[in-house]
């Protein structure tokens, strides 16, 4: 028996959790938010609740990256309609679930 503490005994960082998954990333983003006028975006909620951590704060702007997206729809539901373009990825791209 090893006495060494395993990294699994501590909370895994989001990056490490995402490492477990398979994506086939689309060339084009399937979700977009405006970078200029972000009035009405629920930034704190997007940052804390997007399960894939696609939303991050840079200064007072929220930045979006679509690559690790789970296509769950949460950000669409909490964002005013005119502040988000939300589609599923095309051609089978995006998350590829196996054991869920």
């Amino acid at each position: 028996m090893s006495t060494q503490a395993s990294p699994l005994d501590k909370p895994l960082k989001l990056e490490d959790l995402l490492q477990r998954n398979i994506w086939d990333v689309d060339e084009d983003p399937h979700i977009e938010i405006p970078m200029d006028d972000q009035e009405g975006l629920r930034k704190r909620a997007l940052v804390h609740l997007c399960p894939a951590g696609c939303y991050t704060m840079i200064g007072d702007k929220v930045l979006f990256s679509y690559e690790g997206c789970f296509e769950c729809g949460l950000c669409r539901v909490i964002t005013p309609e005119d502040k988000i373009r939300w589609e599923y990825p095309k051609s089978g791209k995006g998350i590829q679930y196996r054991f869920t």
Partner: protein
Amino acid sequence: MDGVPGKFDVVVVGAGPAGSAAAYLLAKAGFKVLILERGRGAGSKELFGGKVYAPPLRDVWPGLDKEAPIHRWVTRERISFVRGSRVATIEYSLGRRVGFTTYLPELAKWMSDKAVEAGAVLVDEVRVDEIVVRDGRIVGVRSGPDTVEADVVVDAEGVNRLLLERLGLVERLNPSYVALGVKEVLNVGKGTIEERFALPKGEGLAWMVAGDVTAGIPGGGFIYTMKDTIAIGLVLHIGKAMEKAEAGQINKHVSRILEEFRLHPYFKQFWKDADVMEYGAHMTIEGGLRMVPKRLYAPGLVIVGDAAGLLLNTGYTVRGVDFAVASGRIAAEAIIEAFNRGGPTEENLRLYEERLKESFVWRELVRHRWIGRGMEDECYFTSMPGVLIRILEKLYEADYEEPTLIDALLESLAEEDISLTKLIMKLGSVVSKL
């Protein structure tokens, strides 16, 4: 959709449980059926908790028990209430087999394979962009530049229902009607589940968890034993989570809340040394009838499964997959009947809604319709489990003198800032609604 021949009797959007059930029965009855699925093969976009009620699935696939990718039949149900490291658990050992655990990607794949065996055509990697309307009736679907025509479209697109929104048949999703599920699949090693959970060989466990594991967000946790893995996760009310996050009351990422559940001092022993195989998320319906569209049919269209808002989450069980399959079956039967009566006119497709409303699915949803609203009440999620644990703590962890039960109750209520009147009213409102 290159190479998809011109016209079909029925086009099904989405190869989930609802779509595949409908497609299977229609193809078996001799209809020309096309299933369009956006994912790479059926199931690749599917994530759920872990337990499926079998009887409604057997109605569609009588060979289910022998053929389906069943991981374990659930013979133990547990419910735990948690406050900090303190846990109170009720365990029920079932007398018969009604539900099984599985991976939804596997089960959905099996269901769609059955539909294809019966003669349906499945085309995957096709994202339907629009349900096409002509002269006041639905005539097919469009994906990019391609259109496929059909006499009937079965909308089985799931909870996000973008197509129905675009068609104007439903309103935008209300954050209070939906929940976010986050899940981890833990690899515990072959043949260790029985020992870890003291289960008879091949049998499984379903475990719901209420209390502060959700960091104050209304919702709960789940644990399901698969063949050689364990699924754990949290279901969180999106409306409330959003409010709390915006008010600065959530200061960690949801994945961290889930990780803390994985590392909870009591629960972690069950998956000691297990690695995380997969981490994911999917949206689900909070419950109640609030997400059901005003009409479940239109000329040339029927709506089934999650897209139709047909899911029940009582807190102790989730009925999503079986409701989806049942609604798919009822839709298929109604479509067959509609053709016998002269075609899928609006009048004839109304049969679907009528039959659904006579079915167990609807009766269950009506019987539990208060649940959706109850889910928003933090009292049930944090305070009630808190009171219970505080009482037990006072009774079992006293140094010298134990309080009486009533003193323990009153003190615990005060600590959770609930008055006795409020408790009685809350319990009373639950009981009266039951």
